[in-house]
């Protein structure tokens, strides 16, 4: 407890005391002693009461900032710039200090270490992303802040759902990213000279300055564009109708996806449709929205959020389609509801949760 002299407290001390108390009071379990101590402080002087009341008022007003999407962006921007920024700077400094030493051989080679450093930094970033999955939390007990945001060297930003990794390989003429299964949203810093190309699930998604998300699970890839436009085409191993396959370089024909649209590839089928962009990005706020999505895709998604994997035991169940919302913080509750919607039972084992077809249980005896 900070100093709370009744008369001698400076305005700042009073404010700091008020902040301390309001922090304590927000705790769900507060001891009686502490409560009475607060009461004594609050009633000690009119100044204390006034400052405390004003602080509560301000606290409530400022809450509004996190309720509007504009305010959230503002907050995210402030929060995002670190710690990755500082981390990146530190890594860059370190690498430069190591590689810059033998650069006495003229201007040409002095750029090499820098390029190497950038590449190494990208790798370091990837390593950091790979190292940070949350492991030991069971379903529903997931920590907050599931979505991580990373600022890349060119100031493009990537928001990643849990257990989604993006490997960054920036070259002089293109910004190339390799994405694993999962979900990510890309806010691309404009740079016409260096297209931003994401390789995910056999598709290339190529943008210049724009915002888009990719959701990839098994052979489903969905590309949702929030701002600007992107070009989508297969990587050769995978082909989609309407686009010729290519490398990271743009092929002759592509699928062009504009803002407010989603391109969805399943197997070798592709479909372009308008979409409510806010809905498509709700995973960042912990809501996974599905419309006629195969259960296998839904479960694969959910498994990125839970410690104990959910396994579908019957092939038949995988193709059932699900429409609805899954709250990533309430997955246990969701598991309780699905037996009512689908012919299945949920069996919790020590290391996994199994979904078994209800009819399969009886098929042996029939």
């Amino acid at each position, binding site marked *: 407890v900070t100093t709370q002299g009744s008369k001698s407290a400076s305005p*700042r001390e009073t404010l700091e005391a008020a902040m301390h108390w309001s922090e304590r009071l927000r705790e769900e379990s507060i001891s009686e002693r502490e409560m009475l101590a607060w009461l004594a402080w*609050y009633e000690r002087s009119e100044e204390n009461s006034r400052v405390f009341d004003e602080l509560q008022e301000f606290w409530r007003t400022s809450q509004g900032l996190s309720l509007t999407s504009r305010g959230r962006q503002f907050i995210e921007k402030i929060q995002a710039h670190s710690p990755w920024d500082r981390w990146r700077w530190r890594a860059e400094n370190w690498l430069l200090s190591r590689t810059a030493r033998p650069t006495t051989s003229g201007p040409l080679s002095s750029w090499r270490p820098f390029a190497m450093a950038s590449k190494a930094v990208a790798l370091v970033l990837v390593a950091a992303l790979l190292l940070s999955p949350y492991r030991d939390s069971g379903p529903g007990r997931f920590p907050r802040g599931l979505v991580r945001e990373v600022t890349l060297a060119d100031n493009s930003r990537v928001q990643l759902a849990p257990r989604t990794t993006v490997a960054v390989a920036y070259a002089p003429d293109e910004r190339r990213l390799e994405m694993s299964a999962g979900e990510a949203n890309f806010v691309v810093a404009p740079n016409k000279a260096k297209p931003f190309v994401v390789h995910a699930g056999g598709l290339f998604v190529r943008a210049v300055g724009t915002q888009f998300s990719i959701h990839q699970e098994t052979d489903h890839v969905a590309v949702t564009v929030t701002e600007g436009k992107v070009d989508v085409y297969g990587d050769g191993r995978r082909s989609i109708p309407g686009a010729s396959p290519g490398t990271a370089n743009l092929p002759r024909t592509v699928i062009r996806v504009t803002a407010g649209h989603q391109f969805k590839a399943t197997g070798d089928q592709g479909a372009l449709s308008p979409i409510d962009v806010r809905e498509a990005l709700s995973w960042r706020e912990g809501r996974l929205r599905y419309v006629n999505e195969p259960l296998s895709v839904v479960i694969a998604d959910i498994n990125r959020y839970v410690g104990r994997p959910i396994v579908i035991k019957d092939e038949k169940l995988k193709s059932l389609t699900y429409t609805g919302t899954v709250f990533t913080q309430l997955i246990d509750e969701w598991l309780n509801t699905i037996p009512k919607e689908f012919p299945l039972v949920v069996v919790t084992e020590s290391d996994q949760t199994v979904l078994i077809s209800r009819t399969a249980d009886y098929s042996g005896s029939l």
Partner: protein
Amino acid sequence: LFVEHNRSLQAFLRARVGTVQDAEDIAQEAYARLLQLGQPGAISYLRAYLFKTAAHIAIDRARQQLSRTRLDQSLMPEIQVESATPEERAHAEDQLSLLRRALSELPVRYRRAFVLYRFREWTTAQIANDMKIHERMARRYVSRATQYCKLRMGDWSAADARREIMS
């Protein structure tokens, strides 16, 4: 007792629950329960009882609300509660743009400390650890940023507000 402590009780509840309306409701209920006691004991005991009761009611309500919103959300996920009148909303919007401006005027470390504290619910110890500074310093950043924003939202000029928080 009621008159004497009503303000304190309101303050206590406002710090713990979301809205002024809720705080008033809970205070009412706490008083009602106190009256049911019948045998008033020592004043100091009663006071503690009143606050404790209020805290319990607040917690119960929060739990009920949580299960209710869960239900609501699963039924209609996209409906946002907008009970404010247009004027109130416009006022709130003004206040928020003042807040945004005030935050933008602050040095980065103040701004960041404030945002982490207020919107990410970090403790000052966590902020200190993240920023590699002493906790006392983190606390100071947060309190100065808070004070600055309050002053700027209360019609102080940027220069005056800056002088005030650095004094």
